[in-house]
């Protein structure tokens, strides 16, 4: 898949924003950790809402016809993209009531704003889930068509949120070992899930050029795509990063996204100033940005099978896997001609 820059920025930035809000609601409403001052609560809330809003605005960047963007709320019944839009907007009034409660009443808010905050946190999780399901529900992209996809979106949002939560708490001198500990646990959990995802997609299988062309009992090779220049399909789905590029970016994902932030929080736990949590926040956001690029770049749409890919994991740039052994078969020349058809009895008129 061609990685759309606006979608990468949107999912990373608003994902972190939702994660930050979930952390804020959990710490504040459940009374976990130290009591937060009025200013700190507002800072957490404003940063998270700012990031969510910025992300949602960026998300319209990849639309070819922006004036119809409002229509994306219309198909809640069937479309995960529509559901994401609805939940993302539904989040605002609840977050707003909670924010108003904090603004007027400070840390000790009444039951109504507290309830609204809890509902907003749940909606934040549901929105992250919907974002993941936009990709996870597509049967055409085997790398995405797994429960790991929404799990990753939720966990990566929460992990980046924890780094921001600790960093903002540090500004108010309120960061505790609990902040660093929660961040480490969330980052490790997210890294583990992402690791399982990378393991899984290296073994994924599905349609092949045989099922795509209906010739299930013979070798099929592309002779000609029928066009001389690129098409919408090759532009959108023909993206083929080099193997070493993928490996380097993947290294960056783990180093910047998970290892460096965990080391930062580890050193905070062993006495370093809490302010360096900002390093972890920036590092994890950059690392997860790379993760999101890779998420698109590694996804291979099945329409590539019609453009010469042999399997749904094949790179188009790589030489076709039908090589020497096919030549050997050809020399033997014993493949019966009846193998051409998929179904028997094709007598016809």
């Amino acid at each position, binding site marked *: *898949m061609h990685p759309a820059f606006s979608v990468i920025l949107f999912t990373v930035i608003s994902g972190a924003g939702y994660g930050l809000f979930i952390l804020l609601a959990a710490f504040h409403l459940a009374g976990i950790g130290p009591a937060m001052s009025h200013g700190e609560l507002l800072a957490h809330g404003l940063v998270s809402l700012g990031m969510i809003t910025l992300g949602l605005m960026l998300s319209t960047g*990849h*639309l*070819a*016809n*922006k004036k*119809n963007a409002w*229509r*994306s*709320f*219309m*198909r809640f019944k*069937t*479309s*995960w*993209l*529509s559901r994401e*839009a609805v939940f993302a907007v539904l989040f605002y009034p609840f977050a707003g009531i909670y924010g108003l409660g904090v603004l007027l009443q400070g840390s000790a808010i009444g039951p109504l704003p507290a309830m609204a905050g809890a509902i907003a946190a749940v909606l934040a999780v549901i929105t992250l889930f919907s974002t993941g399901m936009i990709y996870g529900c*597509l*049967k*055409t*992209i085997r790398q995405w068509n797994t429960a790991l996809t929404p799990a990753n979106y939720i966990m990566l949002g929460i992990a980046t949120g924890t780094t921001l939560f600790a960093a903002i708490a540090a500004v108010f001198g309120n960061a505790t070992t609990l902040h660093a500990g929660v961040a480490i646990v969330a980052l490790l959990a997210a890294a583990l899930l992402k690791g399982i995802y990378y393991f899984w997609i290296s073994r994924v299988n599905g*349609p092949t050029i045989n*099922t*795509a*062309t*209906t*010739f299930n009992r*013979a*070798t*099929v090779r*592309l*002779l000609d795509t*029928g*066009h*001389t*220049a*690129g*098409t*919408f399909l090759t532009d*959108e*789905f023909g993206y083929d990063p080099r193997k070493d590029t993928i490996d380097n970016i993947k290294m960056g994902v783990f180093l910047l996204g998970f290892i460096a932030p965990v080391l930062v929080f580890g050193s905070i736990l062993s006495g370093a100033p809490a302010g360096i949590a900002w390093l972890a926040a920036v590092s994890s956001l950059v690392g997860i940005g790379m993760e999101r690029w890779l998420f698109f770049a590694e996804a291979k*749409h*099945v*329409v590539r099978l*019609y*453009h010469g890919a042999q399997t749904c994991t094949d790179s188009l740039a790589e030489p076709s896997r039908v090589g020497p052994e096919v030549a050997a*078969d*050809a020399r033997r*020349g014993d493949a019966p*001609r009846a*193998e*051409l*058809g*998929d*179904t*028997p009895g*094709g*007598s*016809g008129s």
Partner: protein
Amino acid sequence: MRLGLVIDMDTCVGCHACAVACKQWNTSGTTGALTDYRPYGEDPSGVWFNRIRHYEVGDYPNNKTVNIPMSCMHCQHADCVNVCPTGASYKRPEDGIVLVDQDKCMGCNYCAWACPYGARELDREDGVMKKCTLCVDRIYDEQLPPEERQPACVITCPAHARFFGDFDDQDSEVSRLVRERGGVKQMPELGYKPVNTYLPPRITRPIPTDDVRANKLVTSVKDWVNKMVAR
């Protein structure tokens, strides 16, 4: 009704006439222009509803060139319609044709991601998704003589490799062809239930060619004449 196409991979010669006829009809049809990008440039590209690709099936010497024209399959389980957030994509209940309402489309590409057959193409000029309409502006047109109320690609096919009809009608030509020739669907494992059906190449006995060029007087004369004519 379940309207769709039957495409005969045995007789298709891969001439692209169906794609050209499609482009000609639909660029001035109800779904607006099929925009061309850089039409006179070095790498002309553009929007097409129908594309033909060419494959080698089997291994030499038991191999064969197969041409596969592909347009919208008007799937029974059309995920492109389900994923569309705006409601621009819809499947007509009366005949199963999948269409895009261009006044509602926001150009997010999501339906193209959901389509395994590459049937949908974004028009970058208009900013909306475009796709095969099964010539909906033609097949119901009572101004046309009945034999012309068919998709442009079907009428134009010089090899008569394309057939249009109702798959729900067991007596229609398309149903009969699918039955008799063992029609097959592309990527059935994804569960989209495409309506368009492909007829596999007929099983033919290989024609021996080893003895054809025996050095007879007649062939020698023929060869000589052919050479002279070519000059």
